[in-house]
């Protein structure tokens, strides 16, 4: 900015400062407000957080602690009316098992991926952002993306070009709602959560196709068609591989499925199903060796070619949240979910298992080449569907003979 000579420039400068303050202040003040006022009052309620925070019950709240000790500005009923308690739906879906948690985890997954791949290939990887091995690299990338210009191609279909990133983010966020990360830590505990997750996964091809078409770019459209082939043909083995576990547990609820595995994790009897699920999940999130839709050496960036700045960032974040959701579903279906030795909160076990699965998702990128599209279709329709049927038969035999 140059010198201020006229009153208009002065006004513009002031308005800009006010604008940035309005953007930055909530990011600083709201967390401080939450830490100082909301959380202590929450913990005064004892462990009966649910009745205290979700359902404002005056008698209960008054019985539990002395109102005189409370902060005069913030009473617990005020907080619960705002819907800000640690067990309220807003907190659960926006913060802890929900979107913020998954986004932060996803950003660390991106950093970990770059670091692991670098170590595998005798490189250093991200180094300078953050003292410890460049652990702040994804946040640096985030700010870089935030300050870049959003370029929209002249002949792109504006509405259909802008909508897909946000649709993908919404779908990934909705996918998180189906995942229980602990026996009592969940956003929603539907008895159809597995089916809901599959239904949400079936939305992604449509969004991808629209994104590739609206970019009005040959690379984008070819990438979108490839993504469509891949997602449609790999959705069938994905559903079939899950079927075995459903036959064994007689349930479509992810939390019930996880809690059935006290005797044995289902990866032992359902090993074929686990392998098929793993491969199809790799294909669903378009990771190497199934990165045919993005194929950076042939198609620039596939269906993402025309996306710039934060639109690209949002899509990338959504894809990594989807990766987290799929590995969480793998953990719940085959690795016993949150089951583990007592002593620590159960979601810690869940997170340890999920992160191990995430690392196993990441590692193949270091040593696999990309497979061709015809090999992909053959693998999907011939081997994976066949193996998934074998898995279903194994589950059927185990179930009907009463072994499991």
């Amino acid at each position, binding site marked *: 900015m140059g010198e201020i000579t006229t009153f208009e420039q002065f006004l513009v400068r002031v308005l800009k400062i006010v604008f940035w303050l309005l953007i930055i202040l909530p990011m600083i003040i709201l967390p401080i407000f939450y830490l100082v006022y909301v959380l202590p009052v929450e913990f005064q309620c004892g462990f009966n957080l649910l009745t205290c925070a979700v359902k404002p019950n005056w008698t209960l709240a008054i019985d539990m602690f002395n109102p005189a000790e409370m902060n005069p500005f913030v009473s617990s009923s005020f907080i619960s009316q705002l819907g800000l308690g640690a067990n309220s739906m807003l907190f659960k879906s926006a913060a802890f098992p929900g979107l913020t948690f998954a986004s932060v985890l996803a950003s660390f997954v991106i950093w970990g991926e770059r670091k692991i791949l670098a170590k595998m290939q005798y490189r250093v990887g991200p180094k300078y952002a953050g003292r410890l091995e460049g652990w702040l690299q994804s946040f640096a990338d985030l700010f870089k993306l935030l300050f870049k210009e959003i370029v929209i191609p002249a002949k792109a*279909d504006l509405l*259909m070009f802008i909508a897909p990133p946000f649709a993908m983010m919404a779908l990934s966020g909705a996918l998180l709602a189906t995942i229980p990360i602990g026996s009592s830590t969940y956003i929603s505990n539907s*008895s*159809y959560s597995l*089916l*809901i997750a*599959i*239904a949400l996964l*079936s*939305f992604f*091809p*449509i969004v991808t*196709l*629209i994104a590739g*078409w609206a970019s009005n770019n040959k690379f984008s*459209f070819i990438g979108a*068609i490839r993504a*469509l082939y891949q997602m*449609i043909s790999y*959705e069938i083995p994905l559903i079939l591989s899950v079927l075995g576990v459903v036959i064994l547990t*007689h349930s*479509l609820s992810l939390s019930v499925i996880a809690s059935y595995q006290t005797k044995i994790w289902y990866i032992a009897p359902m090993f074929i199903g686990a392998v098929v699920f793993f491969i199809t999940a790799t294909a669903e999130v378009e990771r190497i060796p199934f990165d045919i839709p993005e194929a950076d050496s042939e198609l620039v960036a596939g269906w993402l070619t025309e996306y710039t700045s934060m639109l690209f960032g949002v899509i990338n974040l959504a894809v990594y949240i989807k990766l987290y959701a799929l590995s969480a579903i793998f953990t719940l279906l085959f690795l016993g979910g949150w089951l583990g030795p007592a002593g620590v909160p159960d979601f810690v076990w869940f997170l340890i298992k999920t992160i191990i699965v995430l690392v196993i998702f990441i590692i193949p990128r270091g040593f696999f080449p990309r497979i061709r599209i*015809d090999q992909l*279709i*053959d693998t999907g*329709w*011939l081997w994976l*569907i*066949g193996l998934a*049927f074998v898995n279903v038969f194994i589950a059927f035999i185990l179930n009907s003979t009463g072994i499991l």
Partner: protein
Amino acid sequence: MIDEDTIAFVVLSVLTIGAALLSLETRQVVYGAIALAFSFLGIAGLFILLDATFVALFQIIVYVGAIAVLIIFTVMVVTKEVETEAKREPFKPLAIGIATIVALAVGIVASLSNLNSKYPVGPTYAAKDIGIQLTEVYYIPLIILGLILGASVVGALTLVRTDRN
């Protein structure tokens, strides 16, 4: 009278019918195909209102996840620049008016008269009940469906095998 279910029903009906109308009336064919997907989605919401969550989820998986994708894909591949020209339709306002009046009349008569279903509001069926019914009562249709599905899977496998060689 106006409770949450009624509001949800009205919103979902408007979404379903509006998207269906849009898919017929829009000049951009691709928008029409996408509107069709939204119409399917509205139908899934109506199923959820009827306490048939299982059917609603399969409505989404099959119609939005497969059929709408195929339609959109076909439309995108076939017509990129073609925009249908506006035809002269002199009787269109008249037709819309008559259709609206008839629909309103039927709706008013239906809501005023004491029309009830032959069966009272029945129990809602969970997925497990549907499975039990399928395997214990309706097992012959289930076996036939299974055979058809098996035949289609074998057909798909054969196609892939022949393509490979």
